[in-house]
């Protein structure tokens, strides 16, 4: 400490204050128990490539609800990102889609109400999972950022088809185009969510 601060009354006061600050406080008492010193901070790497997520749109026909079933698939050590996105498997086994259906079934209460959201023409007269497409109801994060549905209302039932895109608008446009082609109806009811999520 410079000598000037240690001379006179003011200097002694500053010295005493400095002593309290630098030596006393640390040993003044036990370490508070709630500082969570054992929990390391969470550091998110914002530059890390986006891991593979395959997202399915599932429809609950009893409540006219849509669910986004996000399936994260671990990368192999040899996988390399393309455009900062990790690749997704070229083939996705049916059990992944079945697990996405489970996300709906456990919330709708009955399996018969849960179907893939990409529906065939005539679904309204036979609302059954056999009139839906598993493959067309999913989007992969290595190719698309958003998944969307476009629907028309057959009475109280939503009849929908699914589209993928690299923005909500692009995904909705794809879904609407597919719905209007397949269903031969205007499909004004739409929805979109990101393929990858929290």
């Amino acid at each position, binding site marked *: 400490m410079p000598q000037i601060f240690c001379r006179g009354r003011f200097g002694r006061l500053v010295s005493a204050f400095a002593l309290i600050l630098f030596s006393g406080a640390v040993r003044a008492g036990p370490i508070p128990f709630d500082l969570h010193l054992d929990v390391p901070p969470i550091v998110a790497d914002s530059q890390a490539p986006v891991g593979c997520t395959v997202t399915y749109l599932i429809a609950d026909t009893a409540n006219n609800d849509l669910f986004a079933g996000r399936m994260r698939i671990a990368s192999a050590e040899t996988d390399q990102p393309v455009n900062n996105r990790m690749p997704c498997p070229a083939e996705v086994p049916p059990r992944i889609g079945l697990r996405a259906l489970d996300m709906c079934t456990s919330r709708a209460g009955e399996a018969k109400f849960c179907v893939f959201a990409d529906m065939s023409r005539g679904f309204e007269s036979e609302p059954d999972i056999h009139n839906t497409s598993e493959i067309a109801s999913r989007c992969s994060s290595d190719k698309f950022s958003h998944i969307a*549905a476009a629907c028309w209302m057959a009475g109280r039932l939503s009849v929908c088809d699914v589209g993928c895109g690299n923005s909500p608008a692009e995904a909705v446009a794809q879904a609407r185009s597919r719905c209007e082609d397949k269903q031969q109806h205007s499909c004004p*009811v739409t929805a979109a*969510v990101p393929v990858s999520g929290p």
Partner: protein
Amino acid sequence: MGLRRTAILLMLAASPAYAQPASAPATAEPVKRIFVPPPVQWDNAMSSFRSALQQTAMDLANLTGGIVFGMSPGNVNAHLPEPYAGLSWTALPLASEYPGEVRYFGAAIDRVGTLRMNLTACTGKASYLVFLFNSNGLFRLSYRLSADRTCPDTAEAAREIFARYVPIGQSVAMSVRYQTGKTQVVDVTDPAAGYLIPTRWGRGGT
């Protein structure tokens, strides 16, 4: 008008707020809600999976203002903005639709504080939230949203409530949505409740 005031008015007139259209063009097309359950993590071979998020009862407590499964009726009551006086286990009515001894009390949806989930859609005046208990404590929150003349359809309110619980994994809180008559129901159940889980509310019940 002073020079300074004139300068401020000129700056305001030239600000970006005026450079943009007054409002975005309104879209008349309806937007459907998509519910988002917690993601599932698969291994690289896609042969086994687990929940991708590690959720606990704290996630539920954060949503409900501190109410978690296993709480006693008195403890749940104490969390309400307007607790009932003299509430006790033996004074609670029996919920007849359940097997075994299940008791309950309810509160109007407008009087449940945080548990109202910041609803913006209408609910109907007779809508309420039921707290169901067995010997282990609270095992179910049951929202019953009844339509009436002021609110002919409570489906949107049910969707708003359901949307808040769906992101919580089924291993922490099992959320189910269904309709009984003109009443929309959202049940949020303790996954440890076992044989009580499948029971649903019917008009003749609690």
